[in-house]
């Protein structure tokens, strides 16, 4: 399973970024191979369509689950149209939230 988390930094101890579209980083964790890939949000400074771009990026990356604080309306429409599962978190680090998801203690958005 590939999990995408919105993050404020580029490692497992970085905190969750509450915003989906305008998150600083995307932390993509592959639970099959226990590998973390972090990319800087390439759309962060775009003027518009950030939610759409970010959601499209998520779909194209073959993500199975997303963990973020809040999702904008356009991003949500795209993500809901895909089969990606969405989770909501309030705080914590990337590692903590991956663990919570795997333990089944994160709420679906």
């Amino acid at each position: 399973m590939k999990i995408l988390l919105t993050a404020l930094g580029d490692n497992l101890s970085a905190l969750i970024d509450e915003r989906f579209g305008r998150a600083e980083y995307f932390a993509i964790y592959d639970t099959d191979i226990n590998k973390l890939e972090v990319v800087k949000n390439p759309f962060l400074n775009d003027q518009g369509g950030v939610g759409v771009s970010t959601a499209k990026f998520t779909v194209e990356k073959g993500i199975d689950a997303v963990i973020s604080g809040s999702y904008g309306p356009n991003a949500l429409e795209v993500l809901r149209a895909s089969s990606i599962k969405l989770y909501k978190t309030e705080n914590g680090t990337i590692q903590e939230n991956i663990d919570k998801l795997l333990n089944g203690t994160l709420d679906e958005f």
Partner: protein
Amino acid sequence: MKIAVTSGKGGTGKTTIATMLAYACDNPQYIDCDAEEPNGHLFLKPKIERVEPFNVLIPKINEDICIFCGKCADACVYKALVVMGEPLKKTMFFDELCHSCGACVYVCPVGGALVEVPDEIGKIKIGKTQHIDFVMGELNIGEASATQLIASLKKNYMNESKTVILDSPPGTSCTVVETIEGADYVLLVTEPTPFGLSDLKLSVELVRNMDLKFGIVVNKYEEGNTLIDEYAKEEEIEIIFRLPFSKEFAQSYSKGELPFEKFMSNFRDLLKRIEERV
């Protein structure tokens, strides 16, 4: 002659200045380009003779024949389209991001999969009040951008044989650029407050960038308040007009009335000064 009336900050008195200036002209056409919240009609009280719908073109997707190649989404610089290929097979459109450029339809390789259809985003109202030709744009509730509506007001409804007064939206975004572009003179309306000054600076940057002739109008001017004067002196910008603050004026404004006759000669002088500078 085309005179645009704009401001960085909202509520500084664009409409007051624009309508009073229009009233003082001999052969004016007043165009309310502040289509998100037009209010010139509240003071000019025109008799509306015609109401025309304003349509933009947006793409319509036929998912039955779409091959989900994604060329339309790649062509869209505004990110208004999202295509998801196998196994989802979905093409999604976000109208509030669309700028009606038509690129998506142009690049679509499948005839009929993506076609342009009209979408009404607002109305244009045309009328008259005394000697003033009146035009206003009105964006429908919930629509995101008035830029194309303003472009149409200027292209299809502006009468250049008249003295055209363009009442602009506030700020420095696309709608303002569209309104003031091509104006012979721009009045930057401000008020002598820190907010007024801060946003005036943004407006000055914009009109300088667009290489337009402009001057400052200080509305709600108070004797002894030199905030705007100091800035104007430093930047070597002319303060072309001052409209003093008065409670009486504010009271009549709140009732939808402006002292057009009382200030007629002041605005005639302003018009003369603008003519000298164009």
